[in-house]
């Protein structure tokens, strides 16, 4: 992974000093609430319902064991013993004290971490595929490009005060595990006309109040031009994006109002004037960045089948299920990638305790070259585990409550922190997650349903990505009460689509029953091997809607 040199280290330390002084000026009354808001947001600090919330950047979701240990220690010392992993591969602390935030940042700086640009109207953390570098059909590892983008975007003097937040995701495989189509800019590594690697560039995707799927701005961009092309897009957006209305300020609104053709024309015209400038990457630079992400020292192994081996010993059905759902193929023979499920039924989705973080840091050192990854779906991943060690690892994870065998199933749901922690939310998403878990606790039923993405947001800001859930749940406020709007047919991958609202919103207590009715229709109508999403796409919303609103359940 990327390692800071002395210049990087100085920069994060200088940021700590700057923020310490800004906090001091605020507490001394030299900065108004509004002035401080613009500054603290650019450092990931929200002032919230109960306490400040601090969002710490995990660039493209990659952590060293040392960093994860530090995150655990911070959770214990400054928070209430846990942290919340987010859909953009970051971690949030919900209970720090404002006066202590500079100290937290100082501790992060010592392990090459920061909270720079994790909120505010600037370029946010660049996210990527959590299977980068290990998935069999990848064209190229996207992480060196992510790090180049991270550096280019960090403290970019021209783009620190954008009309609105700006999110970039990069993928290098045909499957999109980074939701790149609902990002302000999606960067896809592709092969060009002559077989050389470069990028397809998309823009204008986004969720929130107005969900939009990104559109192609450029089919093929030679790799050396990545940063100058991004600079051209950002420059057009910075000048032309709306600033009069926050809900219309994202780049998706600009792209929509100009039309993709005109937007593209403006970007290309700007780029024509700067292409070849000092942002052009030379091959040495690209190669040097790539060298940070080279393969770890894998052993020469052959593939084995651990479930079969373990069955011979114990016939362990639970392990078999976990192996099937919580592990995935690795491109190197003899290795497997192992998901650490943060979706235990009685725990808020995406939460991990200080003790779990420290344990995982240890396990990553023992089993996976001292690295761990955060997934867009709010789980963690040990990417490089020897197949022969998988059973032993499972036993340890299971004892720590980190082996719920539900990855990719209904209860592997994405969920925002909701009403309990967020001042924007209309709904207690975590509570709804809990009652859904109680209703769907039968793993055999979950496995029979197969692959289903359930995504839930507590408000229109869509932090839980409900628009692109196969089933989406959105908390709405009706006269001071929590109600839930249900969508079906959304998808976040390479075939991304926005879900369709099935009808009037339902009361909180009826959410599990509503889901049960949707799933009944699926089970009755599916064709062999057909996923929930595909059944919805084939049948449309109608049969689902009819069942849900048939008397007497949902009023």
């Amino acid at each position, binding site marked *: 992974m990327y390692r800071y*040199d002395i*210049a990087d280290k100085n920069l994060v330390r*200088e940021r700590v000093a700057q923020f310490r002084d800004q906090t001091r000026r605020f507490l001394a009354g030299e900065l108004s609430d*509004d002035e401080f808001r613009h500054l603290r947001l650019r450092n990931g600090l929200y002032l919230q319902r109960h306490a400040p919330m601090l969002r710490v950047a995990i660039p493209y979701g990659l952590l060293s064991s040392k960093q994860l240990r530090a995150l655990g220690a911070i959770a214990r010392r400054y928070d209430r013993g846990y942290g919340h992993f987010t859909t953009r591969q970051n971690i949030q602390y919900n209970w720090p004290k404002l006066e202590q935030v500079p100290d937290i940042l100082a501790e992060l700086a010592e392990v090459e971490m920061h909270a720079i640009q994790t909120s505010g109207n600037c370029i946010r953390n660049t996210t990527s595929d959590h299977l980068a570098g290990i998935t069999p059909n990848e064209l190229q590892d996207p992480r060196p490009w992510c790090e180049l983008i991270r550096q280019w975007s960090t403290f970019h*003097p021209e783009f620190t005060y954008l009309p609105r937040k700006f999110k970039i995701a990069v993928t290098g495989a045909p499957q999109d595990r980074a939701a790149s189509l609902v990002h302000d800019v999606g960067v896809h590594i592709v092969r060009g006309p002559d077989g050389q690697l470069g990028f397809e560039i998309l823009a204008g995707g986004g969720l929130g109040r107005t969900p939009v799927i990104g559109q192609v701005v450029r089919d093929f961009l030679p790799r050396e031009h990545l940063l100058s092309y991004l600079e051209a897009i950002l420059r057009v957006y910075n000048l032309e994006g709306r600033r009069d209305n926050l809900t219309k300020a994202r780049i998706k609104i600009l792209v929509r109002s100009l039309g993709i053709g005109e937007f593209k024309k403006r970007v290309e015209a700007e780029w024509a004037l700067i292409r070849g400038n000092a942002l052009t990457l030379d091959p040495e630079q690209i190669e040097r960045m790539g060298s940070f992400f080279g393969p770890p020292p894998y052993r020469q192994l052959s593939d084995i089948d651990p479930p079969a081996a373990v069955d011979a010993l114990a016939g362990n059905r639970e392990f078999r299920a976990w192996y099937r759902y919580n592990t995935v193929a690795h491109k190197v023979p003899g290795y497997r990638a192992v998901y650490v499920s943060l979706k235990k039924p009685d725990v808020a989705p995406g939460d991990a305790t200080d003790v779990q973080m420290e344990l995982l840091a240890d396990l990553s050192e023992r089993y996976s070259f001292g690295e761990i990854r955060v997934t867009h779906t709010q789980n963690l991943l040990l990417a490089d585990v020897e197949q022969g060690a998988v059973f032993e690892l499972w036993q340890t994870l299971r004892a720590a409550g980190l082996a719920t065998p539900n990855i990719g199933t209904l209860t592997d749901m994405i969920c925002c922190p909701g009403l309990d922690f967020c001042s924007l939310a209309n709904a207690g998403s975590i509570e709804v997650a809990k009652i859904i878990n109680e209703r769907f606790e039968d793993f055999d039923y979950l496995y029979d349903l197969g692959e289903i993405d359930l995504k839930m947001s507590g408000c229109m800001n869509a932090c839980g990505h409900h628009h692109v859930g196969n089933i989406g749940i959105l908390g709405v406020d009706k006269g001071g009460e929590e109600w839930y709007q249900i969508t079906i047919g959304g998808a976040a991958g390479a075939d991304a689509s926005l879900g369709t609202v099935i009808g009037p919103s339902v009361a909180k207590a009826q959410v599990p029953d509503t889901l049960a009715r949707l799933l009944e229709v699926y089970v009755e109508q599916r064709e062999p091997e057909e996923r929930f999403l595909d059944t919805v796409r084939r049948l449309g919303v109608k049969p689902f809607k009819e069942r849900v609103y048939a008397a007497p359940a949902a009023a």
Partner: protein
Amino acid sequence: MPRRLLRDRQVVEDDWRYAEELGCASHADAPHAAAPAAGPGAVILGFDQWRRERDAWTARGGRLGVLLLPEHKVEQLAPDLQRLSLVALSFPGPAEGRGYTQARLLRERYGFQDELRATGYVRIDQLFFLARCGFNSFELADGDIAVAGAAFSTFSAAYQPANDRGLALKLQHPQP
């Protein structure tokens, strides 16, 4: 009291006046304000007034500047830059960010060499970024002027090229 500002990292008294301050601002519905025949010298005109009256003001002589608002297009001022000794870019509030791009375009695309001034909401927290985009003068609040010097060196390096000199550019020249 004359305005104090930070120019080329020195605290100076402002030798420029905005047209409104001199009572010679004109508006579309009341054009052709009388240009002071021999005024105090340096005058900053609004962009609209400049477009209406540039020849009269140029003929009058003396140093001239133009104030651009965030929504103005710098390319429309580009043909006039040779006649100007100052361009001021305005920041109506703490969220405004178009001036950063306007500044880079003026410096890098249109080659403007003279005073580039930030006016409006300008506090020390923006100085590092403003300076990197090419601003060399800043109308800061009085309390900020005293402590502004240090703000230019908030960070010891930068990852991306911009419009400044002397800062280590990490992305372009990676260190071993």
